[in-house]
C-alpha cells in the first residue's frame, strides 16, 4: 500500500456545488482516501493508494461528473520537446552528410576544372543519376512532403520553391541522361545538372540544420527558467520530515530548507533566518537576508541558515510559474513592426513563382544561345535564392531573445508591442511614494501647539520649565493618539507610519466614528464629541482652518523633504480640543484661551520617506540616455521639490491627487512626448495604463501586474534604464534583420533573374543561390542571438 497526495487543476468549475459533486465522486472511487476540492484555486487535492487507484481513474471520476482533471501528460513537456528536436536535428544531419557527399561526387565528375581529376565512372551520366536520385527523393523528401499538401490547400512556402527548383534541374538532367540524342537534336550540349539539384538540396538542408540549432538557442532563457523548478520538497508532517515530489506540496505545508538547497515553492518564513540567492529570479546578485515573516521565493537558493516556512503559493501560482507564463506570452505575441513582413510574406512565394515563370519565358524568347539552358538555370536560381524564411524569422527571433534576456535581468515584458514602444520613450514619470522612495515613511516630528509656548512665554523658572517639558511630551502623545486613532482606518502609507509610531509609544487609541477618507486631502472622523481633521494643507483650506503661526514651521519641515500632516478640530462642530495635560497645566499657561482665540489647529506630524538606494543612479542613467525624468506626487511643491532635488529631478508634478495622475500623464503625452509611467502598479494602475508604457515595480510574489507593460521584479530603479536599453537594442536587431532579409531578396532575386546580364554579363549559379539562401536565414537568427551578448 502506497499513499500519495496529488493536486490536479480542475476545469469547468463554477460554484460551491461543483466542489461537492467532484469531492463526492472522487471519494466514491476505490483507493481514494481523501479528496479536497478548492473552488478558488480550481484544484483538487487527492490522497489515494497507488496500488488500488490510478490517475486515469481519478481523471475518469472527475470526467464522469462533467469536469476535467488536468493530468501532467496533457502538456508537452520541455524534455519531450528537447528529445524530439534532437531527433529531428540528428535526422537532418544525416541527410546533410549523405546529400553533400553524393552531391560532391557528382560535382567532381561534372564540374569544369575538376572533371579532369575525377575517376571515369563519376563522369558517367547514369552513375550520376544513380547518385542524385536518393538525394532528390530521400534527402529532399521533406520538401515534397510539405509541398504536395500545401498545393492541395493552394498555399506555398519555401519548401515549394526548393522542390520546384531542384525538380526542374533533376528532371532536365534525367531527360538528358535518357534522351541525349533528342537534346543534341535541339542543338544543346548533352550536359546534365545533377550537381545543381544535389548540392542545392545538401546546402539548403545544411542551412536548415544550422538554423534549427541556432533557433533553439533563442528560446534558451525560458528553458532555463523552467529548469529552475525544484523537483522535491522536504515537508514537516506530524513532527517528521518527508521528501515529497513538488506536485504534492499543498498550501499551508510547512517546509524545511537547509543550506545550499533550493526553495521548492513560494511561502512565508516561520522559523530561522538565512541569506537567499534570488539572482535566478530577480537578477539581484547580492543574497537577500530573510527572517521570520519575510516572503521566500520558490526556485531560489538558500545560502546559509536552516529555516522552515509555510507554503503560500504552489503550482501555477508561484512567482516562477507566473514569470514563465508572462515570458511565454510575450514570446508568442507580435510586434507591430512585424506587420509589414506579414503582409509581404503572404504574397511572397506566389510572386517568386510568377517571377520564375517570367524569367524562363524572357530568357527563352530573348536570351542568347543556348536559350533553353539559360532559361532553365536562371529559373532554378530564382526559385532557390528567394528566402521568405529570413523575413519570417527577423522579428520573432529577436523578440524571443530580447524578452528572455529581460527575464534574466528581472525585467518582465508583457508583450512584443510593449518592447517595441519602449524604445521610443523620451519621457519617464516616476511616482514618488513606493517607487522612488521606499514607501515606508517614518514619523520624524510631532509638534503640538503647546511646544512653542515656552519660548513664546519666555519663562525662566526651572520647575516651571520641567513641568512644561513634561506637559509638552504628553501633549505630543495626545496629538499622536488623535492622529493614530483616526488614521487607523486608512490604508495610506503615511497612516501606517503614524499608527506604527503610536504602537511603539504604547499610546492607547480611541474609538473613531463617522470616519471618512478624503482622497488627496486626508481623513476626518468623530472622536468622542470632537470632529477631528487630519491631513494636508488642502484639507485645512477646504475646512477653512487657518495655519496661523505654524506656517513657517511647516515650510521648514517641507523644505527638508518631509510631508507635514496637520491635526485640527473645527469650532463649528464642537468645543476646541482640550488635551488632558493641558487642562492640568492650565494654571501655568492659559492654553485653552489661546486655542479658542487663535486657531483650531492642534498640532502637526511630519513624516519622511527614505529614498531608495538605486533611485539616484536610476534617474542618472535615464538622463544620460537623453530621457526627461519627471516626478509625480501628492506632496506639496516644497516637499516634492526637496526630494526631487536630492534625486536630480528638475520637473515635478506636485499636489496631484491619485485620480489626477492619469490626466497628468495624458497632458505630457499631449506635449508630443512618448511617456513611460513608473509606479507600484496598484495605486497608480490607471496612470500606468494611460502611459505609452506602464512600468510597475514588482511587489511580493505577484508579477502579473495587469496594468503594467513591463514589471521590474528586481525592484532596482536602474532597471528602468536597462529596460529602455533592452528595447532599443532589440529594435535595432529587428531593423537590421528586416533590412537584411528584405534587402537580400530585393537585390538578389533580380540578379538571379539576370537583370545584370546585359551590362555586366553577370549570372547567378543555382549553387551559389543555395549558399546565399542558406546563409541568409542563418545570419538573421545569428544576429538575433548576438543580442544575448549585448551590454545593457
Amino acid at each position: 500500500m502506497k499513499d500519495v497526495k496529488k493536486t490536479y487543476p480542475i476545469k469547468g468549475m463554477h460554484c460551491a456545488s461543483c466542489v461537492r459533486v467532484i469531492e463526492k465522486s472522487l471519494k466514491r472511487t476505490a483507493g481514494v482516501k481523501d479528496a479536497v476540492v478548492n473552488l478558488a484555486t480550481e484544484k483538487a487535492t487527492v490522497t489515494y493508494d497507488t496500488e488500488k487507484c490510478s490517475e486515469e481513474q481519478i481523471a475518469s471520476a472527475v470526467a464522469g461528473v462533467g469536469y476535467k482533471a488536468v493530468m501532467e501528460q496533457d502538456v508537452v513537456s520541455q524534455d519531450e520537446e528537447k528529445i524530439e528536436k534532437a531527433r529531428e536535428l540528428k535526422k537532418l544531419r544525416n541527410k546533410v552528410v549523405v546529400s553533400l557527399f553524393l552531391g560532391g561526387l557528382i560535382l567532381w565528375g561534372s564540374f569544369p576544372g575538376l572533371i579532369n581529376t575525377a575517376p571515369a565512372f563519376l563522369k558517367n551520366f547514369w552513375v550520376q543519376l544513380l547518385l542524385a536520385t536518393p538525394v532528390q527523393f530521400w534527402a529532399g523528401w521533406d520538401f515534397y512532403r510539405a509541398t504536395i499538401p500545401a498545393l492541395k490547400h493552394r498555399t506555398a512556402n519555401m519548401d515549394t520553391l526548393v522542390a520546384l527548383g531542384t525538380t526542374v534541374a533533376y528532371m532536365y538532367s534525367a531527360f538528358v541522361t535518357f534522351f541525349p540524342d533528342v537534346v543534341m537534336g535541339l542543338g544543346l550540349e548533352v550536359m546534365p545538372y545533377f550537381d545543381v539539384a544535389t548540392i542545392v538540396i545538401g546546402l539548403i538542408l545544411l542551412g536548415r540544420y544550422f538554423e534549427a540549432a541556432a533557433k533553439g538557442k533563442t528560446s534558451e532563457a525560458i528553458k532555463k527558467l523552467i529548469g529552475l523548478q525544484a523537483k522535491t520538497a522536504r515537508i514537516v508532517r506530524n513532527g517528521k520530515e518527508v521528501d515529497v515530489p513538488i506536485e504534492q506540496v499543498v498550501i499551508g505545508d510547512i517546509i524545511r530548507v537547509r543550506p545550499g538547497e533550493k526553495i521548492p515553492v513560494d511561502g512565508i518564513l516561520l522559523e530561522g533566518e538565512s541569506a537567499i540567492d534570488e539572482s535566478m529570479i530577480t537578477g539581484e546578485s547580492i543574497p537577500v537576508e530573510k527572517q521570520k515573516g519575510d516572503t521566500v521565493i520558490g526556485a531560489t537558493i538558500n545560502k546559509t541558515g536552516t529555516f522552515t516556512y509555510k507554503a503560500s503559493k504552489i503550482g501555477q501560482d508561484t512567482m516562477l510559474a507566473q514569470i514563465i507564463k508572462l515570458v511565454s506570452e510575450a514570446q508568442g505575441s507580435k510586434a507591430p513592426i512585424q506587420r509589414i513582413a506579414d503582409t509581404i510574406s503572404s504574397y511572397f512565394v506566389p510572386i517568386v513563382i510568377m517571377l520564375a515563370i517570367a524569367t524562363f519565358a524572357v530568357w527563352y524568347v530573348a536570351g542568347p544561345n543556348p536559350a533553353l539552358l539559360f532559361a532553365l538555370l536562371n529559373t532554378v536560381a530564382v526559385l532557390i535564392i528567394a528566402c521568405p524564411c529570413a523575413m519570417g524569422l527577423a522579428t520573432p527571433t529577436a523578440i524571443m531573445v530580447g524578452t528572455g534576456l529581460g527575464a534574466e535581468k528581472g525585467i518582465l515584458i508583457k508583450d512584443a508591442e510593449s518592447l517595441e514602444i519602449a524604445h521610443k520613450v523620451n519621457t519617464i514619470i516616476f511616482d514618488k511614494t513606493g517607487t522612488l522612495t521606499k514607501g515606508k515613511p517614518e514619523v520624524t516630528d510631532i509638534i503640538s501647539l503647546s511646544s512653542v509656548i515656552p519660548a513664546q512665554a519666555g519663562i525662566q523658572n526651572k520647575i516651571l520649565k520641567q513641568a512644561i517639558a513634561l506637559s509638552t511630551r504628553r501633549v505630543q502623545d495626545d496629538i499622536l493618539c488623535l492622529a493614530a486613532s483616526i488614521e487607523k482606518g486608512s490604508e495610506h502609507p503615511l497612516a501606517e507610519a503614524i499608527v506604527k509610531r503610536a504602537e511603539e509609544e504604547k499610546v492607547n487609541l480611541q474609538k473613531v466614528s463617522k470616519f471618512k477618507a478624503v482622497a488627496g486631502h486626508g481623513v476626518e472622523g468623530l472622536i468622542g464629541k470632537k470632529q477631528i481633521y487630519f491631513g494636508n494643507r488642502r484639507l485645512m483650506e477646504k475646512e477653512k482652518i487657518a495655519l496661523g503661526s505654524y506656517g513657517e514651521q511647516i515650510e521648514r519641515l517641507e523644505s527638508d523633504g518631509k510631508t507635514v500632516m496637520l491635526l485640527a478640530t473645527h469650532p463649528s462642530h464642537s468645543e476646541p480640543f482640550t488635551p488632558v495635560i493641558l487642562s492640568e497645566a492650565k494654571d501655568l499657561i492659559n492654553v485653552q484661551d489661546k486655542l479658542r482665540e487663535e486657531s483650531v489647529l492642534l498640532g502637526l506630524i511630519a513624516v519622511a520617506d527614505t529614498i531608495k538606494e538605486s533611485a539616484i543612479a536610476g534617474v542618472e542613467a535615464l538622463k544620460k540616455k537623453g530621457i526627461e525624468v519627471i516626478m509625480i506626487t501628492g506632496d506639496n511643491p516644497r516637499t516634492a521639490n526637496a526630494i526631487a532635488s536630492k534625486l536630480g529631478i528638475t520637473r515635478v508634478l506636485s499636489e496631484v491627487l491619485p485620480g489626477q495622475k492619469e490626466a497628468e500623464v495624458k497632458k505630457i503625452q499631449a506635449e508630443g512626448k512618448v511617456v513611460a509611467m513608473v509606479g507600484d502598479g496598484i495605486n497608480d494602475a490607471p496612470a500606468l495604463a494611460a502611459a505609452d508604457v506602464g512600468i510597475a515595480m514588482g511587489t511580493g510574489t505577484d508579477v502579473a501586474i495587469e496594468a503594467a507593460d513591463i514589471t521590474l521584479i528586481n525592484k532596482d530603479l536602474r532597471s528602468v534604464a536597462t529596460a529602455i536599453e533592452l528595447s532599443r537594442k532589440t529594435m535595432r536587431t529587428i531593423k537590421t534583420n528586416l533590412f537584411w532579409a528584405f534587402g537580400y531578396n530585393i537585390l538578389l532575386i533580380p540578379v538571379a533573374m539576370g537583370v545584370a546580364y546585359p551590362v555586366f554579363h553577370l549570372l547567378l549559379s543555382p549553387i551559389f543561390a543555395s549558399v546565399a539562401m542558406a546563409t541568409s536565414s542563418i545570419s538573421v537568427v545569428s544576429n538575433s542571438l548576438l543580442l544575448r551578448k549585448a551590454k545593457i
Partner: protein
Amino acid sequence: MTFDKIIVLILGVFGIGFTYWFFLMKKEQEIAVTGDSIDIKVEGGYQPDFISIPKGKTTKINFMRSDPSTCLEEVVIADFKIRKYLPLNKKVTIALTPQKTGEFSFTCGMNMFHGKLKVTS
C-alpha cells in the same frame, strides 16, 4: 519570332495568370465550430485554415502536425499571445476563450503558413 518562342511566351503568360489565380484568388471556406473543440490538421498548412468560434466560450483547438517541415513545428496565435511547439504526430490542444470579436490569424513560427480565426458574437 519562332513558333516555339511564341508557345513559351503564351505558356509563360498563362502560367503567371494561373499562379496568381491558384494562390492569391483562393476562396476562404469558413468552418464554424459548433461543439467545444475542433481538430486542425497541420500538413502543408492548416486544414481547416479558417474557423469561426463564439466569443466568451472556451473552444479547444486541437492541432495535429503530421508534416515534418520545421517551418510548421510551432503555431503562433499572436493576438492571444500563444506560441506552441507542435510535436510530430501528437495532438496539442490550445484552449481559447476569446473576449472580443474580430478576425485573428494563426501562423507557423516562420510566418509562412497562415490560418484565420474568426470570433463571432
